[in-house]
């Protein structure tokens, strides 16, 4: 048992150290699949540089990361700039110890020094701390994650549900979210999350003495002004959108990213951790600036639901779609931007496939989960009088 863990630890660490030390770091940091305007290391460097020269990075439209992160890297840059790759290595390895080690996406994201590493660490810690019932620390990490990239805000719902669930189990009550215990637990969780969140915003404000950063970070994430291609659905859509429908569709798309919280929480109320997981996938698809780094947390958590895999219908299709899009997207990006022999549609096609694959994955998983629950209630197999198996359908 110990040997494979040590082996993967050594291999994972080595892979990261080798790539971080190689000359490919810069190339990886420029890759659209790994770095988006909200996580790019190049932009972070620019922000730190501007801050160093007494210019507020939030004055322009070229920096979209929150102030605390900026100051963290500013301090590291000032004291020991050579430590920065090590910081990324450390953060990613911490996440890795929580979740994964040899996922190539995570190794590449670490090497690209994308700040989504930090977001991943926060989300992974939230998941772990929520399962352990550590309310204060779980809400702190969740607040940090939301503070950095806004979308994790919706994870408060499954997180609060799970914490309430644990409380009710502890008191040996029947599970009901309308019970007194549940309501108070949920209120406590949401309250402590909000307190943490406003503390973070307040600290940021006192550091900068202006609210400019809100426009540059959350405003930017929501209004999608930078249309640089990534693996998501927003860039080409809003590049090609007719001007007078832009605001409307922006609202539709952004609201859409959040709406699944409610139906999933209602249907899967018995298993809030699964809601948490589904939302991670949906976030990786429907956020405005997704990257490969966003997939790492949920890919690592995928085996947790391996008991439901028996009921997956499109496993092969999904994996082939993901592999194809991840391999071909960089090729077509090169053909479009550098060789000039393809156009934007080629890359767009593969970002569509990538998103569709993840959508298939999440819907297939939800189906498998529900189907398994159904089997648990009704028995594995039900036979018709003629001996054939009865079909189970949604109706």
């Amino acid at each position, binding site marked *: 048992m110990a040997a494979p863990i040590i082996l993967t630890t050594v291999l994972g660490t080595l892979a990261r150290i080798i790539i971080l030390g190689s000359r490919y770091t810069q190339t990886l940091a*420029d890759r659209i699949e790994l770095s988006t305007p909200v996580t790019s290391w*190049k932009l972070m*460097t*620019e922000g*730190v*540089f*501007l801050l160093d*020269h007494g*210019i507020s990075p939030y004055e*322009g*439209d*070229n*920096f979209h990361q929150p102030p605390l992160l900026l100051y963290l890297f500013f301090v590291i840059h000032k004291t020991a700039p050579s430590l920065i790759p090590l910081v990324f290595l450390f953060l990613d390895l911490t996440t890795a110890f929580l979740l994964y080690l040899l996922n190539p996406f995570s190794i590449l994201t670490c090497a690209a020094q994308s700040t989504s590493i930090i977001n991943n660490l926060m989300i992974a810690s939230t998941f772990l701390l929520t399962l352990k019932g550590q309310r204060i620390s779980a809400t702190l990490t969740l607040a940090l994650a939301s503070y950095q990239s806004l979308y994790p805000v919706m994870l408060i719902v499954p997180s609060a549900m799970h914490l309430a669930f644990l409380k009710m189990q502890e008191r040996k009550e*029947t599970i009901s979210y309308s019970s007194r215990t549940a309501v108070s637990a949920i209120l406590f969780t949401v309250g402590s999350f909000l307190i943490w969140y406003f503390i973070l915003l307040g600290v940021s404000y006192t550091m900068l003495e202006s609210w400019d950063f809100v426009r540059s970070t959350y405003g930017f994430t929501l209004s999608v*002004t*930078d*249309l*640089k291609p990534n693996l998501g*659905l927003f860039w*080409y*859509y809003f*590049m*090609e*959108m*007719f*001007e007078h429908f832009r605001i409307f569709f922006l609202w539709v*798309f952004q609201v*859409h990213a959040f709406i*699944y919280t409610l*139906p*999933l929480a*209602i*249907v899967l109320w018995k298993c809030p951790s699964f809601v948490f997981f589904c939302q991670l996938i949906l976030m990786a698809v*429907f956020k405005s600036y997704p990257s490969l780094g966003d997939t790492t947390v949920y890919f690592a958590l995928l085996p947790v639901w391996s008991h439901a895999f028996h009921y997956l219908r499109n496993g092969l299709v999904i994996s082939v779609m993901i592999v194809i899009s991840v391999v071909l997207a960089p090729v077509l990006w090169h053909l479009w*931007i*550098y060789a*000039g022999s393809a*156009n*934007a*549609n080629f890359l*767009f096609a593969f970002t569509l496939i990538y*998103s*569709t694959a993840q*959508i*298939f994955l*999440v819907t297939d998983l*939800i*189906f498998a989960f529900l*189907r398994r629950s*159904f089997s648990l*209630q*009704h028995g594995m197999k*039900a*036979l018709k*009088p003629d001996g054939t198996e009865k*079909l*189970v*359908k*949604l*109706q």
Partner: protein
Amino acid sequence: MFAVLGDSFHVACQHYDLFPKAVGQIIESHDVKELHLSLTQGLWRHDKWGYPVRSSPPGAELWAWFNETPARSIDESWANLVNSLSGLFCASLNFIDATNTVVPNLSFRPSGVVRGDERPDQDSVRYASLPKENVCTENLTPWQKLLPCNSKAGLSTLLNAIRLYNAHYHTLTVDVQPVCQSYPACTSTVLRLTQSISVVFRPTLNAGHQQWSLQSLFDRPLKGPCPLAVKSYIHVDISNESISLDYTLNPPPSKVTSDDHGKVASYDVAEMTQGGKANPPTLHAHRFIAGYGQENGGITCMIYNNDISNAVDVVYMETLPWYVRLYLHTMKIKTENGTDVKPDMLRFVPGRDRGRPYLLELMFTLPPASVITFSIQFDRAFLKWTEYPPDANIGFYLGISIQKHMFIVKVCSHQCQFTIFCQFYNSTAAPRCILAIKFKQFPRVEQFIRIYTEPLLLQLPLPDFSMPYNVICLVCTVFAIAFGSIHNLTTRRLDYEKKKETIWMKVKRRIPFLGKKEKKDSKESKEEKKEDGRARDASSTNEDATGDAGRTKEDVAKGTKVD
């Protein structure tokens, strides 16, 4: 006449230097030993003009020698060669076919070198001419493109199509033949491409005087030789100097050679065009775009200080539109030996998307006799499709909208430099003038020069402008897949499949005279339904009672029995 030696190209590795690749490939693929092509408009009047430099008939003429191969494959190569040349020179040479091709035996000999022991095989020559061929600018342009300097520099800049095609006679020729690589020991041969153009002007016809010049002939002056040329000469035949009227050549020729046939005055183009060039001023600058691809890039500006003794203080201003996302941390100012120059002052105003441009102002000192390279990196933004101009593929001009790209303040000392700096800043950042006030006791401004650099043309990545509907449909489809599936999964319940009543069954049930048996069946199914409903009711009440424990095994068993 322009001659290029082919020793600089290696067919095996497809590497061409000065020898045009287009011609090299044609020669190679059609196994041609020698090639002679002429495109002529008008007839050379020997009685009036003497002998031409290279004879050619009116219209098109082509003859070629092939390497020794069977006659049939020579005919095939000839047909292919004709078509290739037709495409290369935009001429109707493709009208050459078996009906007008001949194999002359006596009139043509190879004009290049032939190995001593080798007797030319007269069967391997093909000749054809097309007297009706019209020659015009469309033939001149590809012909000029074969020249190492194209029509950008050297003698070929004189070839002004408007003047050439107004002349009495003109001919374009291309000759490719093997020549000795070294004289006199001719151990190996190389290909030589000779391109010549002959034009007959009568400059004195309507001029009212007997003077003529290159300017009057071609409507253009000659600025200098092609930098790639080894030799560049203009020859004037002055054989009739003694018998004709008095005339003088101005400027005097570089040299005059005479032999039995006549007398030729020669001008060395390089020598004649040497003088008259203004020395660049003490300060000058060039700016250009660096990098490749349409993702990112850099702007580099080289600032020259030719003053040997004085250092010069410079204020550099760069304004760039918002879609050129500048990264200040990539800015480098370096001298030619690679040492960093630290700017004395820096002001950077980051741009805002669709709001305001980037502004960078720098002040630094140019050491005496130095070249400072300023460079900064940028990312190219991706615009909305409506933000591109109608001719988006041309690119975007950078820096012509703002009044100054860059200005340089040349001052005698540091004191005045700050004074100027203050004047400049007065309107925007008054506090910075404190420095100037400190030094104001020396308000001696000596010179104030503003230098503007070149505007830059930047290509931005383009979307497909014809796609908006498709993109909107496709993306919305993906959203619909997600929304539809999750809506389905969350609003409906999993249950055992029920026997669905088909339309045919429905029809049979509604129409009573379709047989008793069916009727009975439908009754049965109705009953079945009722019973099933009852069972479900029962199970649901059961479920209510047991909370989330779900149905009991009994229920499951019941369900199967009912069906």
